[in-house]
């Protein structure tokens, strides 16, 4: 299979695992896809933090992004569920075993379109998991329709002009009382890893919105100019038959800085990295921050809001120390005597 092969590395971490032990199957995503770099960050962080792969569950929905759990942490159980319905499955899994750490990977369509309801209710329950949105503003796997996070007025060859305002998943998380809200850019390894580490240590839902460019479904201005990539073309074939190999887009900028990033389609986005001035404990400041960014068409990156105060779902449920999934007949099946007294009440 012609897929992204990952270079082997030497060295072991404190629990004696090599980085390879944290890898997954070869990726089948497009070359240069932002999602693949995020997988690499997860692998590095898990290796650095010396997490036991057996203590992790990987959850995802449906989409190119949601395929990625197959491409990292081979030694962790994975659950690639249904489109937009991963939060509920994760809720059940963590109720059944609250000692597991969950990493969820979703897409902007998976979370912002079909999955918005489950996403909001998961946040409301404060389900303890790292919830990553690999946000490219399009439906990658179905070939380039707009998702709910696409910017108003944005133009794509396939989908035309987006007439609808974008859903800001960070704002959505915030108003749903999320205790950890952060944003980053797939091409910023340093920041993504920092935020991943912080998210993994958060007890509750940690929402990490990572802008992750889709190399395949955007307007190849250049090529269209030199190359009649017109309507006639699309009509005849039912798929984008040609996906030119692209380079991954990377950025490196400091706190407080703003950078302009050129997407594969020539479009530009503004990233502003938060600095010490922003107090992520002030929900109200976080709201203002996102509202302002919304107006100035900026993307704020960094830790936007954090509140360690909320009880997580597991705590609220008074779950037994032993995971429910490990309870035996002894705890679970009442005695004959118990049945007798229940019967007595009904006579």
């Amino acid at each position, binding site marked *: 299979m012609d897929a992204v092969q990952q270079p082997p590395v030497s060295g072991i971490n404190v629990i004696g695992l090599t980085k390879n*032990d944290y890898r997954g*199957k070869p990726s089948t995503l497009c070359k240069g896809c932002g999602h693949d770099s995020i997988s690499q960050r997860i692998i590095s962080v898990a290796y650095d933090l010396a997490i*036991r*792969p*057996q*203590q992790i*569950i990987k959850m995802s929905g449906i989409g190119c992004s949601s395929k990625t*759990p*197959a491409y990292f942490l*081979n*030694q*962790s*159980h*994975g*659950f*690639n*569920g*249904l489109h937009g*319905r*991963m*939060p*509920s*499955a*994760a*809720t*059940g*899994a*963590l*109720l*059944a*075993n609250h*000692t*597991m750490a969950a990493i969820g990977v979703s897409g902007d369509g998976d979370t912002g379109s079909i999955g918005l*309801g*489950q996403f909001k*209710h998961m946040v409301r329950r404060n389900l303890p998991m790292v919830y990553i949105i690999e946000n490219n503003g399009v439906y990658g796997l179905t070939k380039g329709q707009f998702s709910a996070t696409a910017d108003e007025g944005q133009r794509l060859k396939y989908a035309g002009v987006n007439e609808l305002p974008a859903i800001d998943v960070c704002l959505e998380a915030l108003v749903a009382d999320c205790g950890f809200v952060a944003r980053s850019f797939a091409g910023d390894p340093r920041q993504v890893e920092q935020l991943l580490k912080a998210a993994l240590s958060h007890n509750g839902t940690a929402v990490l919105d990572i802008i992750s460019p889709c190399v395949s479904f955007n307007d190849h201005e250049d090529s269209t100019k030199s190359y009649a990539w017109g309507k006639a073309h699309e009509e005849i074939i039912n798929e984008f038959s040609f996906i030119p190999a692209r380079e991954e887009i990377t950025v490196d900028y400091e706190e407080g800085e703003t950078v302009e990033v050129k997407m594969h389609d020539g479009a530009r986005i503004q990233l502003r990295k938060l600095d010490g001035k922003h107090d992520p404990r002030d929900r109200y400041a976080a709201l203002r921050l996102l509202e302002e960014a919304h107006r100035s068409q900026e993307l704020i990156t960094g830790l936007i809001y954090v509140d360690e105060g909320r009880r997580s779902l597991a705590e609220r*449920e*008074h*779950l*037994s*120390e032993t*995971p*429910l*999934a*490990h*309870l*035996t*007949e002894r*705890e*679970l*099946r*009442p005695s*004959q005597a*118990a*049945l007798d007294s*229940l*019967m007595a009440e*009904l*006579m």
Partner: protein
Amino acid sequence: MADLQNSPASVNNFCIVAATINGSGSQTANNVLVRALFRMGIPVSGKNIFPSNIQGLPTWFHIRVSEAGYVGRRDTTEVLVALNRSTAAQDIASVAPGGVVIYPTEWKLTEDRSDVFYYALPVQQMAKDSGANAELRPYVANMVYVGALAELLGIDLDEIERAISDHFGGKKNPIALNFGVVKAAVEYTRQNLPKRDSFRVQRSDKTAGRVMINGNSAGAMGAIFGGVSVAAWYPITPSTSLVDALGDYAKDLRVNKDTDEHYYSIVQAEDELAAIGIVIGAGWMGARAMTSTSGPGISLMTEYLGFAYFTDIPCVVWDIQRMGPSTGLPTRTSQGDILMAYYLGHGDTRHVLLLPASMEECFEFGWRAFDLADRLQTPVFVMSDLDLGMNLWMSERFAYPDKPFDRGKVLSAEDLKRLGGFNRYSDADDNSGVGPRTLPGTDHPLAAYFVRGSGHNAHAEYTEKPDEWMANLERLARKHETARTLVPAPVVDEVDGAEIGIISYGSNDPAIREARDMLAKAGVETSYLRLRALPTTKEFQTFAAKYDRLYVIENNFDGQMRHILQTEAPARANAMRAVKLCDGLPLTGLWIAKTIVSLEQER
């Protein structure tokens, strides 16, 4: 045909109907009556025909007493308690000749039926005299008819007092207040309403050692004894009370009183799509997980249940069937979800369905479903209905589970060490169609596998290869065959020389028993097979092959089970005739008997 009729009404054999307005508190009175009669040793059943709103619409509570032990619905009303002005006319018209009508004096009713016996009581006045505050008067007013019935029918007052006291958990004031009204009504009746009708009850011994319960409580109890630890649900009539009961039992039986640790978790989800997602996530993780819902919920669970079927994840789904299609009649019973549940999901799917017909089976299937789900690694549906689930039934005391948990093929870290690995979707060891699974958290480098609803091979790897795809579907087909050998076998009652085979399932059972007795009296012998699960088992094949005419009795419109059975036994497809009714009410023995006779005559 003259031969077919309800056993003539008489002592310990008639039906009381209390026609009231919902929200008026009559349920307390009805339950007191049922309990008192039950404790007098008289077989009794209570069915509530209620509207889909909270307050102000007509409700009918049917209390059937039957020395012969018939607890199905009886389609005649012998004793009417008319407390709903808006339906009084029809209610009174529906009373059988020679029957009884109890009503409030305040109505100033013209007693225009000469063939029934009227008894008028000053209901509101007595409520006033009770001393209850204005807000509670309508509530205690219901105790007036309890007293009147007690006096007229001879219901033991001590039993009524006991029932009231149980009802209010022994609390003095409410007991005094309510029983006070009962006694006043008894007194009034004795003084002013000489007995003219012929109905009465007398102590019997038919309920000794038995219990009274509803199917939702029985099912919840069964789930508790089956080891359920995660339940997720979304409120919907008539399934809500199952989860309510589950919560009540869990609070008593599953909380560590010292540490306040809960050995369970019940989550009210934001909707049914989420509820089933939670259940499946928990089942994957290794908990015994269930949901309870009704038709609309099953429709919303379609996609995720197809996923669980295809990824071999165990879970239990209770469908307390109500009348569909669509929102339909939320407070009326039906067996209308059989076809949908059996074939639920896009692509080729056939699920395992359990079909309880009694309180005992609601309890037994309640725990057995989890063993089946774990053994088969698949969703198991328990198809109850509103009549079973929400009405009051007499029952033998429940039998304690006769076997320990069967968790099915689950590999531990030790197993993996020994085996040096595993193939998640390979049944090479026993061709059962079920492969070994590991639970997340299993501490072994080879424990992990990847669950996906897309194409996967025996090693749980993604595949689009035609042969690997087919191999997996064939494995699932083997699993379906294995299910035939594990599900509860039908209950068969064969009569020598019978040419007729009756096939049915679920809550129709009591009416069918009654119908068979009527038919026998009329000289029509029948054998009877009661399905307790799908897929069908060999017993079904034998039975279907044996009888010339097969009558498949169902409480739905299309004859859904018949459609399935016709594909299971094509050679007998043409012998299967539908005996079906779908009017929102439980079937009655008389209707079944008449229908079979007329179909027989058509031949």
